[in-house]
């Protein structure tokens, strides 16, 4: 099962490597990992997407909680949640047909074209990982020059909030 674990942690040097080290040392999977400071500069918020049996996910959350730098965490996939990922994708747009096709697909997927050159379009797209996959799937792969994805971030729906 796929789980999204959100972590509030001390914004300390080395905190990221403690989490990464834990996953590699204990053989847990990481599908994606994102981290950035929050509105409180002393805290970072990390989102880890991982997979495993219920027993493994339980161990993952317990082991993460045990890290001294981890202040609080939640498995947001346990309840209603919103998941978003950002993708920037650079595409070959060397002919009118290609340019029109990209523009059309970007519109359908609510994407934005951020950069235009003579031969390329760079599209920004946000959504669930599935939506980003679907966008890539809808393109002619030979036109893709570069793809960068942020990995998933997420937040619980409703009143529930991960805060200290």
């Amino acid at each position, binding site marked *: 099962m796929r789980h999204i674990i959100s972590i509030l*942690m*001390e914004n300390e*040097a*080395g905190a990221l*490597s*403690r989490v990464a*080290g834990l996953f590699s*040392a204990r053989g847990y999977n990481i599908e994606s990992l994102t981290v950035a400071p929050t509105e409180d500069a002393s805290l970072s918020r990390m989102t880890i997407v991982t997979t495993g049996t219920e*027993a493994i996910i*339980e*161990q993952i959350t*317990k*082991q993460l*909680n*045990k890290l*001294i*730098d*981890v*202040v609080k965490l939640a498995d947001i996939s346990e309840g209603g949640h919103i998941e978003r990922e950002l993708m920037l994708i650079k595409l070959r747009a060397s002919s009118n047909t290609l340019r029109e096709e990209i523009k059309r697909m970007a519109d359908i997927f609510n994407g934005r074209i951020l950069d235009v050159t003579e031969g390329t379009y760079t599209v920004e797209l946000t959504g669930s990982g599935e939506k980003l996959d679907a966008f890539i799937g809808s393109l002619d792969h030979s036109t893709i020059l570069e793809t960068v994805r942020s990995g998933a971030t997420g937040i619980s729906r409703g009143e529930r909030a991960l805060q*200290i």
Partner: protein
Amino acid sequence: MKLSGAEIIVQFLKDEGVEHVFGYPGGAVLHIYDAIFQQDAVRHILVRHEQGAVHAADGYARATGKPGVALVTSGPGATNAVTGIATAYMDSIPMVVLTGQVISPYIGSDAFQEVDAVGITRPCVKHNFLVKSLKDLQSTLKKAFYIATTGRPGPVVVDIPKDLTDPNIKIPYKYLETIEMRSYQPTVKGHPGQISKAVDLIRTAKRPMIYSGGGVVLGDASEQLIEFTRHLGSPVTNTLMGLGAYPATDPLFVGMLGMHGTYEANMAMHECDVLIAIGARFDDRVTGDVKKFCPGAKIIHLDIDPSSISKNVKVDIPIVGDIKHVLTDMIQQLKTGEPQPDEKALQKWWKQIEQWRGKNCLRYDRNSALIKPQFVIEKLWEVTGGDTFVTSDVGQHQMFAAQFFKFDKPRRWINSGGLGTMGFGLPAAMGVQIAHPSETVSCVTGEASIQMCIQELSTALQYMLPLKIINLNNRYMGMVRQWQEFFYDKRYSHSYMETLPDFVKLAESYGHVGMRIEKPEDVDGALREAMALKDRLVFMDFITDQTENVYPMIAAGKGHNEMHERELA
């Protein structure tokens, strides 16, 4: 009061109540050593290798419950300390290790004696710090001691760049009494609902079994364990790390469990209907094949570390909290409510256990013309009246000591259970003796293990530590040889040592007393003579039977009811 970083470290240690620091100087810690030189509140014990410093601090911590402190230099000082740190980590020993680091501007430049100590030790510490500024030094040290000694204890490394200890840069210092950490608040009290559930389950038990581990020793909950066990009238087993938490001479004690545990302990585990695991972590050497583990039992698990719960074996009622608190609450509920333990069912259960006990699974050939290692341990217990600290190294001798020395008190049995570190015994014994100068400290070891930290014989002379070293010398790495005999068709690959030193001369050259004992009839006299030499380290080299094996044994991947027993003619 204005102090330099080096002075802050020493003053803080003093204020924190640290009396002994085990260490070895080097470039990056010279300022700290200079500060140590100029005071006498904190006593520094100079070892001969950094691994020895950390093991000594570890032995000190195990014997006292106070945090052990080690001080080493950067680079090789730090890497030499790693084995000791990992040893303490696996057995949850409270310890603070101070490592020197190159000056801040040099960090990351591959400077002389630079190593990323925080990176290297990260997987084997409870936490670690690199101190970035002088103003953070004291609070970091305070956090280190707080983290090391609370919750599930463990080693904490503090890496200190040399420039932060500069004697010319001084800042105001006032001892920090306490520290708060929003990200670290260990649980103490057990959840009352879980405790009630556990108590209800225990009341239904017909065949209860208590399986208690190192957590009882670390949590100083031996008294509560005894009261709890006696109230239930239940059989109790201790893990290797838990020996002494329940008195071994008490009839309710069925011996150690696990790979080399007793037949009665393992069978009682297999047949029980309610298992109460207390401060134990279901290690693979204890459980054998987890699929065959306690097949008919409901399991209650008390532990301070939530991540220990349902890690290897799924349990029915977990209780997270400090063992002493949780047991106290449970005892109170058990004693007041109804029903009380089912006497009839217990009688039947004990009848079965006595039958298992009657197999005398620890029997060995007592008529041998060669010295049997078990016999030496039995004699050690007899000669000392059981009143000695026993440290050990790792291997057959460790198992013999665990099986044959009847530990009646906690903190008396000091060994590397989790990591299984050969070389632990001698330096650990030094730490114990430093903590308890007037007690007898015996180190049960083998000729392979003792050579891994033999240099510490020199430290023992410097500080006049009258250790009693019991070297069970079978000219083999005994446990390796045993596995090769059983599982590799007697192909004894590299488990034999043909070029052993003369240990008597070796001990003498280090300024100690050496003895060689070759006949069973001389064992008793030698031990008595050694114990009588109160102020000398005595190295007793017992030449033992080379073919002796540790029995009973559960082979890896087998269940508790599938033990190999010794066959005697």
